[in-house]
């Protein structure tokens, strides 16, 4: 791990929106390092700044203070180099492009050749199990399928980091659990690090090696919880360790955990 730079390194990051009396402190004193290949979830109540934090990493929001490094580069450089892939709650597919052309888009923007683009996009559609839908329009797909296209698109440039902002938030529970298992499989195949924003405790616990618990006003990290579940499969969801981890995160969200002191220091 020491040879590769961490996927994300945040030091003393703060973000203030507005100025003067109307200013709100969305984030303050954020220190967080995500190792290469690590899966980290950000969880917390609305307004705790978890999405803002993700957007700082993505260079969609510029921090007021502190530094954000992605793969050892500035967040801006990393964005322009497409060092990360990203998926939002809405798939955001372009309606006039086929599924295949949507996955090709990030490659096309970086001048990849037509054949190379096509080959890579087909490979990705196979990875997310949508090979049969390459020629379809996004509107012909279900919400879950659209989100899988969005994930394939995020992986197009083989990023070392995947940023996900409640990507399964709009899906029904059944689809959601299937997508979670799918995502873990994809991640193990690509060995990308993931920063995953969610407000679902089971989702955070099931997916992550580490859960970052945040609290609002001002937005800050209150707990870092390691999750050790070993290999994830559907049985894990019913195991005692799974429920123990869920309880730990829930307690942390209520601000009642012993580990709290260590994490904030």
């Amino acid at each position: 791990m020491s040879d590769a730079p961490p996927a994300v390194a945040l030091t003393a990051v703060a973000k203030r929106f507005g100025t003067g009396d109307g200013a709100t402190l969305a984030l303050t004193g954020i220190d967080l390092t995500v190792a290469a290949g690590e899966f980290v979830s950000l969880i917390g109540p609305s307004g705790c700044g978890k999405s803002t934090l993700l957007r700082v990493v993505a260079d969609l929001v510029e921090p007021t203070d502190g530094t954000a490094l992605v793969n050892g580069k500035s967040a801006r450089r990393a964005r322009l180099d497409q060092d990360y892939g990203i998926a939002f709650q809405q798939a955001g597919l372009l309606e006039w492009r086929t599924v295949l052309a949507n996955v090709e888009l990030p490659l096309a923007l970086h001048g990849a050749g037509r054949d190379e683009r096509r080959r890579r996009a087909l490979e990705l559609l196979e990875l997310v199990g949508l090979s049969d839908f390459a020629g379809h329009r996004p509107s012909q797909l279900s919400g879950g399928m659209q989100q899988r296209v969005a994930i394939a698109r995020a992986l197009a440039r083989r990023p070392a980091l995947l940023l996900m902002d409640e990507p399964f938030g709009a899906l029904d529970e059944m689809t959601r659990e299937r997508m979670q298992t799918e995502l873990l499989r994809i991640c193990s195949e690509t060995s990308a690090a993931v920063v995953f924003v969610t407000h679902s405790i089971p989702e955070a616990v099931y997916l992550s090696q580490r859960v970052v618990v945040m609290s609002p006003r001002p937005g800050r990290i209150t707990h870092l919880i390691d999750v050790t579940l070993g290999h994830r499969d559907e049985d894990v969801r019913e195991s005692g360790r799974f429920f123990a981890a869920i309880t730990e995160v829930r307690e942390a969200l209520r601000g009642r955990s012993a580990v709290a002191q260590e994490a904030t220091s």
Partner: protein
Amino acid sequence: MSGRLRGVHVRRGAMVVLALVALGVLWELYKLVVPDDGVRIGDGLVLPRSDDASMPHLSEIVAVFGEREVAGSAGGGTVAASVLSSLWYSLGLAAAGFVVGVAVGLALAVAMARLAIIRRAVLPYVVLSQTVPLIALAPLVYGWGGNLTLLGWEWQPWMSVSIIAAYLAFFPVAVGALRGLTSPPPVQTELLACFGASWWQTLLRLRLPASVPYLIPALKLAAAAAVVGAIVAEISTGLAGGIGRLIISYAQQATGDPAKVYAPILGAALMGLAAVGLMSLLDVALRRYQPTEVAS
């Protein structure tokens, strides 16, 4: 899908024809029911006259097209021939105006979409430009063009007419394209930013395709506006050769031949329809950029 598409077009065409027939029937019915001198209450005329001088029979209007032109006028053939050649000339002027107007409208929209400061500075004037009466503007433009030489090219009077047509045509394009270019939701513009796309790449890959549903109606409006602009400009600058001048010259013969006025008016209406119809072809060609109903 294409079969259903054709069905829709056929039905739309049938409706247009039906509306025309209904209009004709109404016209003749009015002549039949209302007395020649119209209907008066006291001194006020409440329904216009329906005598043959004010409202010639449709058959007479149609017959006019076959009449020989009076000696000395251009062409010397039938009225239909003069109307057609005038239409062709005016359509050319309108087309030139349309092209210039669309180019200017698009350029303005892109500039306004690029920088908020340009939008704030320019948009009020874009709107203001359309409140100036065209009739007042046309002689001015004509006057400016009078002694203009551009790169060795002398300014031609017809160019003034096209410029005036462009002046009307750019407006719907500028407004429609601006709405279209700013229509993509934040999730899409942010995605493009995350892909490291430049502003021009975002314009080409996202904003332009997304603006097609806004551009098509704007282009239809612009086409109709260019036709109206060209005709009004011909009349107010006195340019010969087009349908505008023909309307005036036939109107002057109205006492002798009341039906003749209607020939160029029908022609002008036809020209407007043709211009808008041409834009409908774009509609079909750019179908894939239109929002689709969920069906396959």
